[in-house]
C-alpha cells in the first residue's frame, strides 16, 4: 500500500479513537446534524414520492384531453362533436369520457365518479379507490348506497378495490358503468365530459393540439406534458419554499458547527500541541480534522437519510404530510411507493455536508496552527 494511503488510515484511526473518547461532546452535534438531515431528507423523499406517484398516474392518462368551452367555462361535449374532429394525422384513438364529482356527506369528502365501458365494469357494480374503501369500510362484494343529486338512492356492489400502487390520484376514485353513470347523474344522452385522444409520437402532440383548436375553435386541448410540467413545478416550488424556510435551520446548524469546532476544550488543544510537537505537521492535523468532519457528516447523513426513508415510506411521512399534500380529505395512507432519486440525494448532500464543511474549515485551521512548542511551556 502506498505511504499516502497508509497515512490516511492512520489519521482515520486516530480520529475514530478521539471521537470515541469524546462521545458526549460530539453526540450533541451528531444528533442535531442527523435531525437536520432527517427533516430535509423526509421532505425531499416525500415530495419526490408524490412526484413519481403523479407521474405514474399521468403515464396512464391520454396525451391530449379536449374540453369544450362555453363562455369561458368548461361545458359538456354535445352529440356529434366527436365526429367533427375528423381524422388528424398522429391521433391513434379518440373517445368521449364521462366523469364527475360526488359529495359524500358521510365522509364529508368529494369522490371522483368515472364511467367505464361495460366490458370493464358491469351495470350495478363499482370499483373503488383504496382510501375510500378503507374509510367507508368496503371490501369486495360489499354493497353501498349513494344518494344522487336528484335525491334518488342507488345501490352498488363493489366489484373490486383499486390497487394501491398509485394511490395518490386513485384514492377517491369510483368507477362505474356508463349507463349507471348517466342514470346516477341524470347525464343527457350522447353528451360527454371531455374527449381523450392518444397520440403515439410525443413530437406530434403540439401539432395535434394546434389542429384541434383550428378545427374546433370552442375547444381547449390539455396536453399531458403540460400537466406533467405543472405538477413538477408545483412540487418543486413547494419543496423550494420549505427548503428556504429551513435555510434558517441550516444556517443555525452551520453556526453551531462553527461554534463547536472553534470551542476546543483545553484538553483537545493540548492534544493538538502534543501531536505537533512529536512530529505532526500542520497539514496532517488539518487532514485529521477534515477526516473527523467527514466521518461525522457521513454518519449523520446516512443515519438521517435512512431514518427519513423509514419515516416516509413506512410511516407515510406522518410529520410532514399535511404541509406538502392537502387536496382531498381522503389522505392516502402508508402507501407511498419507495422512490429515491440520485439528484435529490446529491442535492441533499450539498445542502447539509457543504455548509457543515464550510463552517468548520476555518476553526480547523485555527486549531491546527497551534504552536508546536506550546507543550514545552
Amino acid at each position, binding site marked *: 500500500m502506498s505511504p499516502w494511503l497508509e497515512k490516511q488510515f492512520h489519521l482515520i484511526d486516530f480520529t475514530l479513537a478521539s471521537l470515541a473518547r469524546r462521545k458526549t461532546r460530539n453526540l450533541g452535534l451528531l444528533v442535531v446534524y442527523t435531525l437536520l438531515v432527517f427533516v430535509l431528507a423526509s421532505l425531499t423523499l416525500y415530495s419526490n414520492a408524490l412526484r413519481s406517484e403523479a407521474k405514474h398516474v399521468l403515464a396512464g392518462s391520454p396525451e391530449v384531453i379536449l374540453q369544450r368551452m362555453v363562455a369561458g367555462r368548461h361545458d359538456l361535449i354535445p352529440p356529434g362533436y366527436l365526429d367533427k374532429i375528423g381524422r388528424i394525422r398522429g391521433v391513434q384513438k379518440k373517445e368521449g369520457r364521462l366523469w364527475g364529482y360526488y359529495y359524500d356527506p358521510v365522509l364529508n369528502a368529494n369522490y371522483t365518479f368515472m364511467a367505464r365501458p361495460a366490458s370493464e365494469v358491469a351495470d350495478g357494480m363499482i370499483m373503488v379507490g383504496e382510501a375510500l374503501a378503507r374509510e367507508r369500510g368496503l371490501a369486495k362484494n360489499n354493497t353501498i348506497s349513494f344518494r344522487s343529486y336528484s335525491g334518488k338512492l342507488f345501490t352498488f356492489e363493489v366489484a373490486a378495490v383499486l390497487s394501491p400502487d398509485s394511490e395518490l390520484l386513485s384514492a377517491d376514485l369510483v368507477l362505474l358503468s356508463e349507463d349507471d353513470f348517466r342514470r346516477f347523474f341524470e347525464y343527457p344522452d350522447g353528451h360527454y365530459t371531455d374527449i381523450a385522444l392518444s397520440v403515439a409520437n410525443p413530437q406530434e402532440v403540439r401539432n395535434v393540439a394546434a389542429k384541434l383548436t383550428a378545427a374546433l375553435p370552442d375547444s381547449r386541448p390539455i396536453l399531458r406534458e403540460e400537466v406533467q*410540467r405543472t405538477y413538477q413545478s408545483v412540487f*418543486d416550488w413547494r419543496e423550494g419554499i420549505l427548503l428556504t424556510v429551513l435555510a434558517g435551520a441550516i444556517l443555525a446548524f452551520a453556526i453551531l458547527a462553527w461554534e463547536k469546532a472553534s470551542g476546543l476544550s483545553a484538553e483537545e488543544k493540548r492534544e493538538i500541541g502534543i501531536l505537533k510537537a512529536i512530529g505532526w505537521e500542520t497539514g496532517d492535523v488539518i487532514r485529521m480534522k477534515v477526516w473527523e468532519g467527514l466521518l461525522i457528516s457521513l454518519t449523520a447523513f446516512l443515519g438521517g437519510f435512512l431514518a427519513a426513508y423509514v419515516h416516509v415510506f413506512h410511516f407515510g411521512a406522518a410529520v410532514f404530510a399535511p404541509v406538502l399534500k392537502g387536496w382531498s380529505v381522503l389522505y392516502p395512507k402508508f402507501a407511498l411507493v419507495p422512490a429515491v432519486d440520485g439528484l435529490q440525494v446529491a*442535492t441533499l448532500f450539498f445542502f447539509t455536508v*457543504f455548509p457543515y464543511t464550510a463552517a468548520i474549515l476555518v476553526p*480547523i485551521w485555527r486549531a491546527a496552527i497551534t504552536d508546536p512548542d506550546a507543550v514545552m511551556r
Partner: protein
Amino acid sequence: MLFQPAIIALLLAAGLAVLMLLLATPFALQVIRRWDMASGSELQLILERRTYLFSTLVSFVLVVQLGALLLFVFNADRLAAMFVGAMCAVGTLNVNEWGFPALIAQMLVFFLAAAWLAINHVDTQARDYPLVRIKYGLLIVLLPFLAASFWLQFRYFSGLKANVITSCCGSMFSTEAESIAGDLSALPPLPAIWLFYSAMAVTTLLALWHWRRRGAVSGGLLALLSAAGFVVAMTGVLSFVSLYIYEHPHHHCPFCILKPEYDYRGYALYLPLFAATAAGLGAGAIQPFARVASLRAIVPRVSARLAALTAAGFLLFTVVATGFVLASNLILIEH
C-alpha cells in the same frame, strides 16, 4: 426564477466559494506585501501559517466545483421536463443564452483551481517557498473567474422561465446545424474515429514520454495537448461514441449518456477525462518555474507524477469509450 432545491444548492455553493475567497483576499494581499522568508519575526510565522488556510480553502473550492459541475449537469438534465422541446440537459441549457456560458465557466474554474493547486503543491515542497507571491497573485486572479461563474449561474437560473420553448440536442448537435457543435457532430464517423484515436494516442504517448523524461518543453506541450485532447475527446463523444451508446445513428448528444436510461455511462467517460485534463494542465502550469533553483528537482518529479495521471486518465477514457463502442449493436462503419 425556478424555485428548485438543486438550483438553490448550486447558487449557495458558488456564492459561498466566492465569499470565502473574497474574505481571504486581504490576507492574500498581506502575504504578497509582507512575505520575508529570511525573517524570524512573528509576523512571518503568522503569514506562513495562513498559507495552510488558503490551500485548504482552494482545495475545498476545487472539490465543491467538481461536485457542483456534476450537480449542474444532473439538474439540467432533470429540469428538461419543465421546458417544451427539452429532452435532456442541452434543452435546459438552451433555455436562455446564459446556460452554456455558465457550464463552461464552471469547467474553467475547475481546471484553473486544479492548476493553482499544482503550483501550490510544488511550492510547498521547496524549502524556501519560492512561488509564494506568484501563487497569491494567481489566487487573486482566480477570484474574478469564480465571481463570473457565480454571476453566469445566477443569470442563467434567474432567467429560467417555465414553458419556454427551447431546442434540444436533436437540433443543436444535428449534423445540419450551423454551429461549432453541429460541425463537430457532423464529422463523418471514419475520420472522426481516426482523429479521436490518434489524438488520444498522441496525448497518452506524450504524457508517458514526459513521465520518463520530465523535460520542461514536453511538460508545456503536455498541457497544450491535454487541452486539445479534451476538445478532441469531446468531439469524439459527440460524433461517434454517443451514437454507439444510444445505438441510434443520428443522436449526437454529450449529456443524454449521463442519464439512467444509459446506465450513467457518461460518468465513466467524463470522470477520467476531467481528471486527466486537470492533471495535464497542472503539469504544464508548473513548468514555467522549472528553473527556479529550489524547484529544479521538484518540478520534474511532480510533473512526472501528474503526467502519469494524465496518461492513465486518457488511457482509461479511451478504453472505456472503446468498450462502449464494441459493446454496441449499432453499425456505423461497414466492415
